[in-house]
């Protein structure tokens, strides 16, 4: 983590702590909880896409695996929420390993198709394994999670709980990027051949990052499950996978901060557009298109550009 990152992280933390004291409306707090949950997956995906240069259009699957592991184990089998939480992480990373070894040998659009296929298969399994997952009607009555004696049963508590997780994951990711591994990853992004020639085990590294991003997805999934206390397959389909990729790209692919901004925008925007009723999808598509046309490097790239121009003027 460099100085700029630490400072931004500090400002973010302060803002997050102040936020619920200024905005008391639970609807906004609840939206922020979802921003946090989506942000966690987007950060993981940005490590994979922006740094390791590998696309995944199936990340909703890991989110779903975490969510369903927590849901099935706690609601149906009476496991402790934290036990289910860590088993979800274990399951997701194992599946990421199994899928990652053959998939990450693929390149470009072939990798996109493979991850997309994996995501769809997982989605279909959630739908069809009715005995375990409850099929399309899902699983309800999932118990709340508690930490150090506090049950996370209000929006405010959950807000702090989720964002604490996010800050932890963000700090970890920022440190990872500035470590030896992070530099190796960026070299893979620029040229895999050159990275190999420099003695970097690119295959192993790509799988490790894929597993890390899967773990983040699973963490977000478990957090989601214990917040909404209900899961059904429709939350983990292709649309959500694509939405995650869009969060990363629209925020700015080459920065984990971008992923966070993208997650915030694409989580909050639909809430505002809901008032437009039938025009919702139309306006949503137009906004995305305009951002990509005018800010091809994403929001963070655009912000940097504005900031630099401002400094020059001053």
């Amino acid at each position: 983590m460099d100085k700029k990152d630490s400072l931004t992280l500090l400002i973010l933390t302060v803002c997050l702590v102040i936020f619920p004291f200024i905005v008391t409306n639970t609807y906004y707090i609840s939206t922020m909880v979802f921003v946090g949950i989506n942000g966690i997956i987007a950060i993981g995906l940005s490590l994979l896409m922006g740094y390791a240069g590998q696309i995944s259009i199936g990340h909703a699957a890991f989110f779903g695996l975490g969510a369903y592991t927590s849901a099935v184990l706690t609601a149906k089998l009476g496991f402790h929420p934290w036990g289910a939480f860590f088993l979800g992480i274990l399951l997701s990373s194992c599946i990421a390993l199994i899928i990652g070894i053959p998939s990450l040998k693929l390149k470009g659009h072939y990798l996109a198709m493979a991850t997309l296929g994996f995501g769809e298969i997982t989605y279909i399994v959630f739908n069809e394994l009715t005995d375990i997952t409850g099929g399309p009607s899902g699983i309800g009555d999932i118990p709340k999670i508690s930490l150090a004696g506090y049950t996370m049963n209000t929006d405010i508590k959950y807000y702090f709980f989720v964002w604490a997780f996010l800050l932890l994951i963000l700090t970890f990711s920022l440190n990872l990027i500035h470590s030896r591994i992070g530099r190796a990853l960026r070299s893979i992004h620029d040229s895999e051949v050159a990275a190999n020639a420099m003695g970097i085990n690119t295959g192993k590294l790509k799988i490790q990052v894929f597993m890390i991003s899967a773990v983040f997805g699973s963490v977000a999934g478990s957090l989601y499950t214990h917040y909404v206390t209900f899961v059904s397959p429709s939350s983990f389909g292709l649309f959500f996978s694509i939405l995650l990729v869009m969060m990363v790209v629209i925020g700015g692919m080459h920065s984990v901060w971008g992923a966070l901004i993208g997650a915030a925008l694409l989580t909050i925007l639909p809430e505002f557009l809901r008032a437009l009723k039938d025009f919702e999808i139309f306006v949503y598509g137009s906004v995305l298109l305009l951002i990509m046309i005018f800010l091809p490097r994403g929001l963070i790239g655009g912000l940097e550009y504005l900031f630099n121009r401002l400094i020059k003027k001053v």
Partner: protein
Amino acid sequence: MPLYSQIIQYVLSGITIGSVYAIIALGFNIIYNSTSIINFAQGEFVMLGGLTMIFFTVMLKFPLVIGFPLTVLVLTLIGIIMERFAISPIKKPTVVTLIIVTIAVSILFKGIAMLVWGKDTHFLPPFSGEKGIAFMGASLNPQYIWVVGITVVVVVLLSVFFKYTIIGKAMTACAVNRTAASLMGINVKRMVLLSFALSAAIGGIAGIIITPITLMSYDNGAILGLKGFGAAVLGGLGNFYGAIFAGLLLGVMESLGAGLVHSGYKDAIALLVLLLVLFIKPSGIFGVTEASGFKKF
């Protein structure tokens, strides 16, 4: 029905749906070859084709022979508009940016279709009645013949176009090497525009012929596009005949899987085979390894 006629029935409907996947895959390939973009709005062309045809023949009561070319014309225009207003304004295109742009366009198309046609599922009557034709103990829906026949016509026309016309050859040249093509005096930008127009037109045709069988609503585009993309990848991206073979294979597998194993898992079976093929041969059945490594993210 005995098992063997059942299997024939599944293979027949598999070939039909597979033909449509093949056409969609060809649409992906045409754009991919000239731009190396995967156009995620390809499925929306199919949806718009079906719904536009319904608008002309069901709502305005135009006869088929007029509705068909009109729909293809409208779709061609939509393809041109998409290239002009969404693809060509991008200043420094990267593969990922372009993918997101096409996704944004597909959401936009879906939004427009919902405003125009509403959320209902629409019906298009089959081109020549619904009375099944007996075929080796199975019943053959006449629309199946239309689908396969039109697919064959599209494939033949496209291969003639790419092999024997000067524009088609110019597009092929762009696919092989864009820089070299532009040095030979080919206007690459115009070829890109043309590829979007052509791709939208054949996507529209796919929509017109499949709608009498599967019906059509504003949100059907994505899944059709996904299957077409699967076929294009399975056949080796950019490979003309690979796409046709893979499309048919995917269709038949899906249909057999649904009929003989479990209808809920039909998509999973097709995708599983696709993944296995990719894991064994990472550049698709007919793809070249070099090509798969060339255009990366």
